[in-house]
């Protein structure tokens, strides 16, 4: 059984999707979803421990077909780190998100909602686990197509979810199609789709226009998927009009998976010495800086909190892009650290927002006026999440920024380090606006009185505690991130 863990963690949520449709009963649907994500998390956590203990990658041959003929899954230090993160957050959001889903999604759609929910989780895990470049595309589309449907389910509350989902579909499909073009060009050059074989054969082929075009198509397609500035316009409406549980799941995991896929392709396949990689690195670096400012400044002017934190995601993805753009193992490790930390903080923030939305509806600066006293634990979770975004010491966000800035200073990139610090400090402005609204204003007399229930804060607090844990006891995460970065860079050499 455990020998099959690499495939079980994906196949269980994948099979849960049709099972939920067949059951057609919403309580059972939720129970199946919780059980499937829990099992998936256990298998992925077990794989992480196994890889961490031995340091050796686990190779799983699907259907016992060996590498050149069959598709294999390779679980190494890099994806073993990302998978339990995704499965764990998926489990927590499924567990505590039920109240939010019941409040926001039409009751007769619940079984189909959970079915699409399981598909998107299975798709995300599949992209991370697989070692086949085309298989990544298939899983990418499984997770994206179900995500479009999930975003559109926000239409019960706000019809703007529909155009948001449609735009997301158009841009997501363009991104995925660019990726497939790139993979096709690579297949023409090398005759393989296996990531390990691609990495081994590309240096032998050397500089060709075809290889350069493949790099450009793959990088551009995935830049769209990670919402790198200026290709980020799909993200804000999609996250802000989706049902709260969907926003929490997607803000925490969806773009992180794409960041991982981008790292795997750029560093694990093309490698640092491939012609054109320097230009891609420079692009990542400066578009990352631009994104950090554009996202933070846009967040400062937002009054709708879901939009605000979606804008802040663009800034945070900018920091991950900067880490990749440094083209060093320290920079890549900083990206991995921030990938994990940002998933935890954004998961906590969007779960807390979902908790508030159950009572106030649209969460805006005016609708949360004075809620600090009525829902102390929920707002405190939101606050801790916000502090972690800024990078206040003792939160995981501080560790992310510390290693990112250290990696920049290693390469004497003082200007970029300074810009990173300035944009992080600017985040204080929007977090302060929330503190002011929630704690310093009085709750208007005619506003809804909130009775805080554990469903509002339990999930958010689990993630906040994880954020604080990784802020204080960072060694284990930092070690894992450096191992992941070195595995990635080692593959290509």
């Amino acid at each position, binding site marked *: 059984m455990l020998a099959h863990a690499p495939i079980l963690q994906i196949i269980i949520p994948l099979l849960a999707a049709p099972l939920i449709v067949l059951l057609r009963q919403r309580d059972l649907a939720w129970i199946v979803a919780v059980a499937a994500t829990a099992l998936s998390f256990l298998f992925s956590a077990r794989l992480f421990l196994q890889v961490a203990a031995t340091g050796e990658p686990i190779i799983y041959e699907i259907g016992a077909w060996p590498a050149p003929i069959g598709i294999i899954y390779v679980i190494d230090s890099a994806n073993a780190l990302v998978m339990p993160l995704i499965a764990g957050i998926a489990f927590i959001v499924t567990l505590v998100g039920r109240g939010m889903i019941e409040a926001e999604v039409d009751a007769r759609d619940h079984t189909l909602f959970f079915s699409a929910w399981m598909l998107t989780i299975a798709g995300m895990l599949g992209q991370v686990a697989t070692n086949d470049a085309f298989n990544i595309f298939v899983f990418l*589309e499984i997770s994206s*197509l179900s995500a*479009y449907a999930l975003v559109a389910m926000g*239409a019960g509350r706000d019809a*703007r979810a*529909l155009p948001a989902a449609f735009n997301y*579909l*158009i841009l997501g499909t363009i991104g995925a*199609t660019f990726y497939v073009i790139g993979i*096709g060009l690579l297949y023409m050059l090398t005759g393989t789709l296996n990531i390990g074989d691609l990495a081994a054969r590309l240096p032998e082929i050397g500089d060709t226009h075809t290889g350069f075009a493949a790099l450009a198509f793959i990088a551009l397609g995935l830049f769209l998927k990670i919402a790198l500035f200026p290709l980020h316009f799909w993200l804000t409406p999609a996250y802000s009009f989706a049902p709260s549980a969907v926003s929490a799941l997607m803000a925490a995991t969806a773009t992180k998976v794409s960041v991982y896929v981008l790292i795997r392709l750029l560093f694990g396949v093309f490698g640092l010495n491939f012609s054109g990689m320097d230009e891609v690195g420079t692009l990542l670096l400066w578009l990352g800086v631009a994104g950090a400012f554009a996202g933070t400044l846009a967040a400062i002017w937002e009054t709708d909190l879901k939009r605000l934190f979606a804008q802040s995601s663009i800034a945070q993805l900018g920091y991950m892009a900067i880490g990749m753009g440094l083209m060093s193992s320290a920079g890549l490790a900083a990206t991995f650290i921030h990938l994990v930390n940002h998933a935890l903080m954004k998961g906590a923030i969007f779960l807390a927002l979902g908790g508030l939305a159950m009572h106030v509806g649209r969460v805006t600066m005016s609708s949360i006026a004075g809620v600090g006293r009525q829902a102390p634990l929920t707002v405190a979770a939101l606050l801790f999440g916000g502090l972690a975004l800024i990078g206040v010491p003792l939160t995981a966000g501080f560790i992310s920024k510390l290693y990112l800035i250290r990696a920049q200073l290693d390469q004497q990139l003082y200007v970029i380090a300074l810009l990173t610090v300035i944009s992080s400090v600017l985040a204080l402005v929007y977090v302060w606006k929330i503190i002011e609204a929630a704690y310093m204003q009085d709750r208007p007399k005619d506003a809804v009185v909130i009775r805080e229930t554990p469903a509002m804060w339990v999930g958010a607090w689990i993630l906040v505690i994880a954020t604080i844990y990784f802020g204080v006891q960072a060694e284990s995460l930092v070690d894992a991130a450096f191992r992941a970065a070195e595995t990635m860079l080692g593959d290509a050499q």
Partner: protein
Amino acid sequence: MNLSPLLAQWNYVLVIGLMMIGFYTVIARGNLIKKMVGLNIFQTSVFMLYISMGKIKGGTAPILTGDATTVYSNPLPHVLILTAIVVGVATTAVGYALIIRIRETYGTIEEDEIISAINAQDGHQDAS
């Protein structure tokens, strides 16, 4: 200018032409149905790219003949594209389903009219 390399690889020229027609349609058209059609043309160009790369001149269908000198076309890109066609069909279905819902809600499938309807709604909410 020597056009012979382009003519020798006319299949790729066609693919690029189709790709640009589709991509332009997605970006330039405001009608959501036309956007989806553009997206389909864009995806189809990629199918052609894969299918034509698998074909070998004089190659036959990849069914073992027992003759060692037989040249076979590469079936793998064709199989990959079967998967991509399924993905394309699913994308189109989800896209049209969304367009139907958008039309039910906003009464139009023109992008600029939807945007002005949304802006009007935004203004109303900020005022209330």
